[in-house]
């Protein structure tokens, strides 16, 4: 019985959490998509500021990580491929795995670490220092003021970052291709382009938009759920990172399965 009880309680807790995320996302979507037609200005200035922090400032670390990721993929792929003397397929192996899966996923992980945690910490700290209450008493809706710009920035920047990650991954793979598999740089890129379908890139980008929405929702939700006291901010930040990674993987699974079914 205790086990059933625990399962039930956790299920309800999980559903409540997802409900909370959905409510927050819904309100952010309202302020992004509908409120502008009712005379509320979209905060492009703040969104731009967020886009810089989320997107542009993530480029160096993302570039390095995905470049090495591409190289690792090439090495791992070649380990199997060389048994069949099929090293020339290393370009397509890297290209397809990067664009369909690892480009969006690695981008999401980097963005969770840099921005998802920062959202939770920022909003959590504002909650603790009564700044959220201050916004409310100044007739500034905290969701509109804080979450909407982050949402806009994330769903615009994640596809851009993912595209760049795809490119850097291919570049990483080309190092192996040129050094070991007898490709020229031009030949490797040509092989990549031949292997890729538009569908591969687009499915990756669709996933990245969903990841952006999930990361923003979780980061901001955890921030708003912060209790009293500074140590609660740390708890929220950790929870935001862990929960974001978990939900990104779940969303990834759902969409990958969907694209698998649709792609036949």
């Amino acid at each position, binding site marked *: 019985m205790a086990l059933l009880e625990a399962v039930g309680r956790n299920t309800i807790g999980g559903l409540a959490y997802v409900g909370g995320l959905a409510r927050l996302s819904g309100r952010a979507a309202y302020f992004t998509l509908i409120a502008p037609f009712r005379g509320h200005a979209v905060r492009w200035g703040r969104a731009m500021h967020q886009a810089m922090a989320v997107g542009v400032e993530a480029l160096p670390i993302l570039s390095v990580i995905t470049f090495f990721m591409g190289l690792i993929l090439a090495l791992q792929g070649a380990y199997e491929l060389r048994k069949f003397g099929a090293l020339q397929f290393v370009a397509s192996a890297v290209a397809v795995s990067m664009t369909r899966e690892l480009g969006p996923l690695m981008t999401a992980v980097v963005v969770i670490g840099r921005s998802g945690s920062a959202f939770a910490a*920022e909003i959590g*700290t*504002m909650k603790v*220092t*009564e*700044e959220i*209450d*201050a916004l*409310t*008493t*100044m*007739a*500034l*809706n905290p969701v509109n003021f804080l979450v909407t710009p982050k949402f806009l920035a994330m769903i615009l920047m994640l596809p851009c970052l993912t595209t760049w990650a795809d490119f850097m991954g291919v570049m990483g793979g080309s190092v192996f291709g040129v050094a070991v598999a007898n490709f020229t740089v031009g030949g490797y890129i040509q092989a990549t382009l031949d292997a890729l379908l538009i569908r591969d890139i687009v499915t990756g980008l669709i996933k990245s938009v969903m990841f952006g929405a999930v990361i923003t929702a979780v980061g901001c939700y955890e921030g708003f759920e912060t209790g009293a006291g500074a140590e609660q901010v740390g708890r929220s930040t950790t929870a935001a990172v862990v929960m974001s990674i978990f939900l990104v993987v779940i969303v990834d699974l759902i969409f990958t399965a969907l694209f698998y079914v649709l792609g036949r």
Partner: protein
Amino acid sequence: MSAPPADDVVLSVRDLRVRYGDREILHGISFDVHKGETLVILGGSGSGKSTLLRTLVGLQRPSAGEVWIRGKDIAKLSEEDLDDTRKRMGLSFQGGALFGSMTVGENVALPLHEHTELEESTIQIIMRLKLEQVGLAGFESYMPSQLSGGMKKRAAVARAMAMDPEILFFDEPSAGLDPIIAAGIDNLILKLQKAFRMTIIVVTHELASAFLIADRMLLVNKGNIEAQGTKDEMQNSKHPRVRQFLDRIAEPEVSEEMDYLQMLTGEAPPRAL
């Protein structure tokens, strides 16, 4: 629903009850605040005075009762209509609650940017004016983290006044400040009273400060109003709670030995003794 209050009553609270979950914090509070007066809400920790303040500014919804501000019962307003009322009120938070990512000047200018169509140059002038009124002229480009505790509170007052509110609220204005800085904040409140005839509501437990700035006082205890009256009435009150609060007498310690034993062991009291 009763009729809205008379014209010179800026804020009227009627039988206000607030509960968090199962616990009722305020058990039916009623009082009026008249235009231009300074009301001090006194109360100890856990008395419900902070909850009262949060309800008056619309941060907490009442579970029953009415809160009339500017001819509207804010207990029944939607969030959006409530925002119209909020724009006419200012709240200076206990810790200042300045936005850490903005300069002091941007903090003060924020409501003007968000809620008015004023030109940038006009906003800058108003912002400097408000900072000057609280004695922070020239500090507009400082970050809140560069200010001392007293300066943060002054900056918070400037921000609360940015929209020229009809009612200005203070949450524990002298908490955490040394006596000299706290006296400075009291003087600032007195100055705002005299210069702008502002309606001011102060929540505090500092007696010295309360008797200096108040026109009228309210003593809140355990979710009820124990006493209200002018400074002199309160000073001469015979009400035991008022005397206890004003004379700083501690709550009597647990004296019954059995009670004490129970408290230690955490056991239920023996039924028949």
